[in-house]
């Protein structure tokens, strides 16, 4: 059922050239991700998790193969189209939060909305909703530097969801956080997936993080070994 499929990766290959050396990360990778999935991609360091996520997010291009998003090819879009496509469809969550240090929480969350036609008042409403959802409504005026890592990542989550994208891509979202805080963040992602219907693809090497996902893919030597996650 094509309409159920959000991502369809067909025979993806990826090579990096470093000087004269060519490193092949993926030879021929196939992957389907359904709408509403919460997928955890695991694997040892250097196995290509981030590279895969970058290709899913249109941030990096495969060397061969096709990436279909919602039935449309996206691997061959130009830079401008890709930027627009990202803005319309994807929320990113990074390991190191990637907040703008000179902007307060609300202005950070507002950033994706600057790419929309929303006016200032509407934008403020969206920002407030997103910050409330991550439990930080009272921190709207705080600067990133005044917040803990967990709080900053929640601001980043608010930024990722503020423009209501279908898909959230996370690269090691808990990699820089302590256990309790990491659990909070993962629960939040779970809620976004379960209650708000977001498709989530999360790269992690933390086995506990994978427990929150509905589907775990193990990446090793350029190929997947799929297992169902245990029910928490």
């Amino acid at each position, binding site marked *: 059922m094509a309409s159920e499929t959000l991502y369809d990766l067909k025979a993806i290959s990826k090579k990096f050239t470093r000087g004269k050396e060519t490193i092949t990360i993926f030879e021929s990778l196939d992957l389907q991700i359904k709408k509403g999935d919460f997928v955890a991609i695991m694997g040892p360091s250097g196995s290509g998790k981030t590279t895969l996520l970058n290709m899913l997010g249109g941030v990096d291009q495969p060397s061969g193969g096709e990436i279909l998003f919602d039935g449309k090819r996206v691997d061959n879009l130009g830079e401008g189209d890709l930027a627009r496509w990202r803005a319309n469809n994807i929320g990113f969550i990074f390991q190191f939060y*990637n907040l703008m240090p000179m902007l307060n929480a609300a202005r950070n969350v507002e950033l994706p909305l600057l*790419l929309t036609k929303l006016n200032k008042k509407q934008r403020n409403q969206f920002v407030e909703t997103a910050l409330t959802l991550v439990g930080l409504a009272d921190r709207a005026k705080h600067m990133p530097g005044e917040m803990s890592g967990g709080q900053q990542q929640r601001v980043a989550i608010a930024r990722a969801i503020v423009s209501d994208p279908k898909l959230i891509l996370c690269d090691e979202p808990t990699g820089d956080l302590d256990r309790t805080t990491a659990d909070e963040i993962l629960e939040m992602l779970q809620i976004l997936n379960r209650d708000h219907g977001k498709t989530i693809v999360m790269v992690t090497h933390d086995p506990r993080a994978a427990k929150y996902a509905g589907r775990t893919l193990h990446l090793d030597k350029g190929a997947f070994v799929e297992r169902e996650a245990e029910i928490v």
Partner: protein
Amino acid sequence: MGSLLSQISAVVAMNIRSLPKRLWMSLAMVIASAVVVAILLAFLAMARGFEATLEGAGSDNVAIFTRSGSASEINSTVTREQVNLVGDAPGVLKEGNTPQVSAELYVILDGIKKSSQTEANLPLRGLDVTGVGMRKGFEIQQGRMFTPGTNEMVVGAGVASQFEGFSVGSELRFGKNVWTVVGIFGTGGNVFESEAWADAKVIQSLYNRGSSYQTIRARIESSASIDAIRDYIAQDPRLNLDVETEASFFAEQGKQLRYMAFFGLFISVVMALGALAGALNTMYTSVAERTGEIATLRALGFSNLSAFAGTLAEAMLLAAAGGLLGALAAFLLFDGMSASTLGGSFTQVVFSFELSTDLVARGMVMALVIGLLSGLFPAWRASRIPVVAAFRANG
């Protein structure tokens, strides 16, 4: 999609807010462009003031006669006979039967410049009441006119302000001659204010000139009369004289001194290159520091044009701030300031710096060019930052 403008303005605002992180480098860039602009403006204002001083002096309705090939007043001599012959030349105006001719002497005095306490030459011009009447805008500002036949002189306002000892009532000794300053005159800021004037007859006797003079000025109908006068001179072997309007005579001298503007421009350009190197460094550092931020914004869907424009705007803003600062400094330091420099006859010409809005505009253009050049390449680099850098930010 949201307008590109809102992306760009957001990025520019972010860059500006992050300036304190790069405070010293940014400040250095501002100051460097301020210095360049201030120096450029100082030279431009000086050249402008100098030109105004010379151009303002010349009249189209006065012809100036010098001995053939003498080029300047100091090298010229004319005889009494030639003065009389010029009086009969076509186009020379008469009042009743008296031709409007001024036979003048031009000798050099040593003065002490107030600013540097060094010796400098100033011209003492010998003339009579007809000659005084040929100077546009002449007015006695202090004291009175010299009395013909006495050792009295009046001095121009520039002389009084730039040289020691030329106040009204003071007695001055030059060689064996003692002069009394009885008045200070103005001629609207032009070159004549850099002269001292006394009775031509007195100078003739004190300087053993007999009945000879150095230059002749004559009122003429219009600048068109010059051709007829030239013909008249050519036909009379006794008149080996050059003639031109006073306006073109001074304009010619002004041109010789344009080097000042060129020199200024040259110095400013050299300094601008230095400032540019520093500014480029500042901007490349800024881009390097913002790599993670730029890549993150790109990941969120911001265009690479916004990264480009944001960087360029930062550079332009810093340079423009420097430009304004430099213009302000130039205005406070130089505008209206008087200075003197060597004029056409190895005498000091006193002039003032004239900083006008069009010069300030030129200074700002210079600042913006520095901003543009120092921003362009870093901005290009900013726009080329790969989005994947966002995932490496911080780690």
